[in-house]
C-alpha cells in the first residue's frame, strides 16, 4: 500500500515537472521555420489547405458564414468576439497573450476600431507585428485600388497597408422630413444654422431634440472632428490636443448652448431611454451606420419608412465643407498565418463579393460594393431625399486632421465629460480635466505630448 502511495506521489511530481517545463518552453518558443517569402514580412512556412481561424463580431458573422458556404474546400473556423467595440481593447489584449505564448493567433481578425494599426503594425517585445502587410504580395494592386480613396489610410504606415477597411462611417446630418414639414423648418446646412434652429425648436416645440452627447463617439468623432477641432492629433511619436483653438472653442460653446436649451440630450443613442425619442428627433448629426443601427432598428428608434433622410454634413459657415467619421471596421490578416492564400481569398470575399454588398449594415469601403449597397438602400423606399448623394458627399469629405494613436478618444470623454454633464456641469467647465486626461493617456502610451 505504502509503495503505491509513493508511486502516486512520484507520478504527480513528474506531471508537475513536465507541465512546468512545458510552460517555460512555451514562453520562450516561437521563431521556427520562418522565411521571407517576398510578401514584405517573415511569413511562417505555408501549409496548403491548413485551416484558418477567423475572428468576427456578431454583425460580421453572416459574411464569414457565407464565405464558408461558398468555399467548402477551404477549412475555416469562425469565432465570434466583441469586435473590440467601444475601445474595449479585447483585440489587443488577446494578441498580447498569444504573443506571450508564441502561438494561437487567429488568421483573420475583424475590428470595429480604426486605430489598431498603431500597435498591430509594430513589433512588440521581440514578437513580429501581428498584422501582415497586405500590399506587398498578399493582395494584388488591382484589387486594392478598388477601395474608396483614403479608406485604408488609417491602417497605412509608411506606404504599407496593414488592414482593409470594411465600411466607412462618415458623419451626415440625419433629419426627419415629417417633423420638419410639420414645424415649417428647413434642413440646416451649417453648424450656425443648426444652433439657430435649436433656439427656435426649444422655444416653439420643447421636448423635441436635435442630437445626443451621451456617447463617447458622438462628442468626439461627430462634433469635435466635424468641427475641425484639433483635439486629437498625431505626428509620428508626437501627440497634441488643442482645446484653445478657435474651432474647438466654437464647438464647445455650441454644445453647451444646445445642452442648456435641452435640444441635445445626454442619453446614449443605444440606451434603453433613447427609443422614447422616436417621434421627437428632428435632426441628428451622425455616422452613415445610424441608418441600420438606430433608425431601422426595432430596439432603437424604429422610425417608419418615408420620414428619415440624410443630408450633406454640417460645416462652419465660410469654411471647408468637411465632416467627422465614426469608426468603420477593419479586416486584419495575421503575419503568423500558415495559409495566406486562403486568408487573401477570405479578405477579397468579405469586402468585394456580391454577398458583401447584400449583408453590409453600413456604407461599404470598397467602391463596387458601396455602389451596389447605396442602390439597394435608395431603392428600398425607406429614405426620403437624395440618400446616396449625401452619403457619397460625406464619404469623400472626411477631415484629415484627426489622429489615430494607440488609444481611443472615447475613453477620456466617457470617464470625464459624460458623468460631468450628468452632474450638471458644462462642457467648458470640464475641458481642463478632459484635456489633462487625454494628455495623460497619450503620455502613458509613450507619445511625446505637445
Amino acid at each position, binding site marked *: 500500500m505504502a509503495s503505491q502511495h509513493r508511486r502516486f506521489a512520484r507520478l504527480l511530481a513528474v506531471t508537475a515537472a513536465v507541465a512546468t517545463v512545458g510552460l517555460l518552453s512555451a514562453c520562450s518558443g516561437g521563431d521556427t521555420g520562418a522565411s521571407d517569402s517576398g510578401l514584405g514580412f517573415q511569413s511562417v512556412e505555408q501549409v496548403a489547405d491548413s485551416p484558418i481561424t477567423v475572428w468576427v463580431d456578431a454583425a460580421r458573422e453572416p459574411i464569414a458564414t457565407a464565405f464558408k458556404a461558398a468555399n467548402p474546400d477551404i477549412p475555416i473556423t469562425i469565432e465570434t468576439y466583441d469586435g473590440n467595440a467601444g475601445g474595449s481593447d479585447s483585440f489587443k489584449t488577446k494578441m498580447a497573450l498569444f504573443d506571450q505564448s508564441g502561438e494561437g493567433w487567429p488568421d483573420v481578425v475583424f475590428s470595429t476600431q480604426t486605430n489598431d494599426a498603431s500597435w498591430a503594425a509594430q513589433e512588440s517585445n521581440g514578437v513580429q507585428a501581428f498584422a501582415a502587410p497586405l500590399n506587398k504580395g498578399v493582395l494584388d494592386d488591382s484589387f486594392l485600388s478598388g477601395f474608396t480613396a483614403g479608406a485604408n489610410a488609417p491602417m497605412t504606415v509608411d506606404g504599407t497597408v496593414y488592414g482593409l477597411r470594411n465600411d466607412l462611417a462618415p458623419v451626415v446630418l440625419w433629419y426627419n422630413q415629417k417633423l420638419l414639414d410639420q414645424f415649417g423648418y428647413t434642413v440646416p446646412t451649417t453648424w450656425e444654422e443648426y444652433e439657430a434652429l435649436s433656439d427656435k425648436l426649444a422655444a416653439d416645440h420643447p421636448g423635441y431634440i436635435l442630437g445626443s452627447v451621451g456617447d463617447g463617439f458622438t462628442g468626439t468623432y461627430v462634433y469635435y472632428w466635424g468641427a475641425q477641432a484639433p483635439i486629437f492629433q498625431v505626428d509620428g511619436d508626437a501627440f497634441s490636443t488643442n482645446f484653445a483653438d478657435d474651432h474647438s472653442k466654437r464647438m464647445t460653446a455650441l454644445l453647451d448652448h444646445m445642452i442648456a436649451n435641452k435640444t441635445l440630450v445626454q442619453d446614449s443613442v443605444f440606451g434603453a431611454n433613447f427609443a422614447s425619442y422616436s417621434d421627437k428627433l428632428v435632426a441628428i448629426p451622425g455616422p452613415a451606420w445610424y441608418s441600420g443601427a438606430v433608425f431601422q432598428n426595432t430596439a432603437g428608434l424604429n422610425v417608419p419608412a418615408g420620414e428619415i433622410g440624410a443630408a450633406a454634413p454640417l460645416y462652419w459657415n465660410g469654411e471647408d465643407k468637411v465632416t467627422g467619421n465614426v469608426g468603420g471596421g477593419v479586416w486584419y490578416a495575421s503575419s503568423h498565418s500558415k495559409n495566406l492564400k486562403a486568408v487573401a481569398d477570405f479578405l477579397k470575399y468579405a469586402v468585394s463579393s456580391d454577398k458583401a454588398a447584400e449583408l453590409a449594415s453600413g456604407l461599404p469601403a470598397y467602391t463596387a460594393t458601396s455602389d451596389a449597397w447605396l442602390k439597394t438602400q435608395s431603392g428600398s423606399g425607406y429614405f426620403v431625399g437624395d440618400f446616396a448623394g449625401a452619403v457619397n458627399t460625406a464619404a469623400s469629405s472626411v477631415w484629415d486632421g484627426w489622429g489615430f494613436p494607440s488609444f481611443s478618444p472615447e475613453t477620456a470623454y466617457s470617464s470625464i465629460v459624460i458623468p460631468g454633464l450628468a452632474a450638471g456641469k458644462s462642457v467648458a467647465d470640464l475641458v481642463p480635466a478632459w484635456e489633462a486626461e487625454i494628455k495623460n493617456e497619450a503620455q*502613458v502610451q*509613450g507619445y511625446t505630448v505637445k
Partner: protein
Amino acid sequence: MGYAFSSGYGILLLAFGVLPTLYAIFLAFTKNGSFVGLDNFSKVFGDYRFFPAVQHVALYLVVYLVCLILFVVLLALIVHAVRSRWLSTSVRFLYYIPGALAGASSVLLWLFLLDPTVSPVAFVLRGMGLDSFVQTVSIDNLPVIFTIIAFWTGAGGWIVIMYGALNNISEEVMEAARIDGAGPIGTAWYIQIPMLRKWISYMGIMALAAGTQLFVEPRVLSQASKGVVPPDYSLNQLAYLYAFSQKDFNGSAAISLILLVVAVGLAAFFVFRGGLFERE
C-alpha cells in the same frame, strides 16, 4: 496517505500560486530579462493613475470591511437568537442563495438593478436623485455600490459560518451568563463576540484578500457603462492595463507585488490582533 490527499492542493498551489508569484517577483525587478532594480516601481508610482486607484481601493476596503464585520456579526447573532427552527434555517438559506451566483454574473444582475430606466427598484434610485445609469455609477457612489454587491454575494456564507461558530460556544457558558443576569445584548457583547474573535479576524483576512483584488465588478461596470466607470478604477485593473494594453508585463508585476505586500501587511495585523494563531 496524508501526502496523497494534500498533494492535489499542493501541486495546484505550486503551479498557480507559488510559481506565478516567483515569476512576478522576477518580472518586477527586471526589464527584458536584465536586472533594473526599482525602475519598474518608480515608473508605476509616477503613473498618474496609480494613486487614484490606491485611493479607490482603500476607500472601498474601509467601507466594505466595516459593513461586513458589523452586519455579519449582527445578523448571525440575530439568526442564532431566533428560537423557531424553520425560521432560522430558511433565513440562513435565503442569506446564502446570492453567494451561489459567481462574480461576473452577479454584477450583470446588478447592472439591471442600478439602471433607473429598467430597474424594478427604480423608485428607490429616483428617490435618491439618481435619474440615469450614468448618475448612479458616478465615481463617488462606487465604493458603496461595490460594497453592496460584495456584501450581497459574500455575506451569506459568512453568516452561516458565524452561526456555526456561535453554536460551538458551550451551553454552560451561556447559561451561566443568563443566571448572572445578562440579557441578549449583554451576552452578545461580553460572551459571544469575544469568543468569535478568531472567526471575525479570519473573515477580515479573507475579505481583505478578496477586496484588494477588486477587479471583476469595476471591469464589468466599466464595459457596461461604456467607460463612464473608468477602466483604471482599481489597482488590479491598472495591472491588467499595464500587461495587456501597454504590453508592459514588468510594470504589471510591480503593481501585483505592491498589492501583495500591502495585503500581507494588513493580514498580519488581523492575525496578531485577532489571535488567530494562538492556541488555548
